[in-house]
């Protein structure tokens, strides 16, 4: 069963990709969802606005799959449930 954070992240990604592919936690941003570097900016801009946070560029570089974003947000940026 997915968590509220997982659902929110998936919703943000779905709203910011050109092709309306199914988005899952195991989806690879580049190979499954065809997200290029400019597309990634769109996704992370929206995540920042949705959660009221500022994500460091260095943290974005290691992201490969959707689950990596959920893990990053949960462990580094959203320790407080108030952000959800």
């Amino acid at each position, binding site marked *: 069963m997915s968590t509220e954070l997982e659902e929110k992240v998936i919703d943000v990604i779905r709203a910011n990709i*050109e092709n309306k592919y199914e988005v899952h936690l195991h989806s690879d941003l*580049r190979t499954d969802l065809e997200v290029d570097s*400019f597309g990634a900016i769109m996704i992370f801009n929206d995540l920042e606005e949705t959660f009221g946070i500022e994500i460091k560029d260095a943290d974005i570089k290691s992201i490969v799959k959707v689950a990596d974003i959920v893990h990053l947000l949960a462990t580094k940026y959203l320790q407080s449930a108030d952000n959800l």
Partner: protein
Amino acid sequence: MKPSKVYESLAMDMSLADRAGFNPYYLKMVRGGRGELKVDQKGFFDLASNDYLGLATNPRIKAAMIDAVNRSGSSFCGTPIAAGYAAILAELESSIAGMTGLQAAVIFPSCYQANSSLFCSIADANDVVAVDHFAHASLIQGIRASGARIKPFLHNDTHHLEKQLAAAQSHRRIFVVTESVFSTEGSIAPFDEICRLCAQYNAIPIVDDSHGIGVIGKNGRGILEYKNIRGYDGIYTASLGKALANAGGVIAGRADFIEYLRYNCSGLIYSTALAPVNAGGLLASIAIILDEFPALGKQMWSNHAALVSQLTKAGFILKGGEAPIASIACGSPERTVTLAKRLFEQGILSTPFIPPSVPPEQGVLRLIIGAKVDEAAADTIARRIAALAGSGAP
């Protein structure tokens, strides 16, 4: 790092060309007859260049260029702000402003230079630039260099753009950037709706009309004519090396803003001005377009329709844009370059786009037939494409 290691790390990976047995880039070309090029002395139909109206071999333009050299020499050997602002450049600026219906224009050595240096003159970290996801690299490089907050929006998606604009209202200046015609797939921006959103959200629209000027609109005047936009209060840029068949770039708009750029845009101030030979040719190109676009445009659209029909019959999947650009969806870089090779073997030059020019696995092979060839040549091209039936669809 040792210099040898530096150069090693900068070496080009040519494995894709090696695997395909063909490198479609940097082919050494010699101009043949109308719509024809030669590579290694073999004749090819030119479906690769952006010479939409077939003006690159026009005798009237060639004569105008020779005349400009005779009158003004090879170069004024200076920047426009100093000794390089030839009278013929001022004449060209007026001509382009008149063609597009804008107050004033300023000429750059290239559109890449115009786009990449514009944003540092108008925006900084206090500002936001919303930009179409598929905008040209020159625009993106310029926006990034300015330090402004960059907010891409989904391609031609005005709902997504409106969301970005609503979220940007606390910033000082807001700009919205798009191309008119997206040249890899031939789609055309909903620029009338974009201008309406800009007015609603106090943003300034910026459009790159490089593949629109001389191509779209009833009289070939570009995106503003095509979308029937009057009193445009935004910024306009375009390449002069596509349908206008020459070189250089332009920024046009309000007269007071263009005057500001003349003294504040480093890409203009510190570059040697466009040579008189180019300005002379461009004046002739614009005169021809204003006089003859109905006939030239008719030939361009007729050739394009025949090409699209033949490609579809042969089983290729086209991107389906509104502009006279036929883009075959190929998928992987390997498929894209391989299809370019198959066309090359049939004597047809095309333009393959692979990442990073396009998103991953969205390779495209572009064909622009324009008015470059007559009906007999278009028939020959169609027969050669028919020979490739079933070989290109991903």
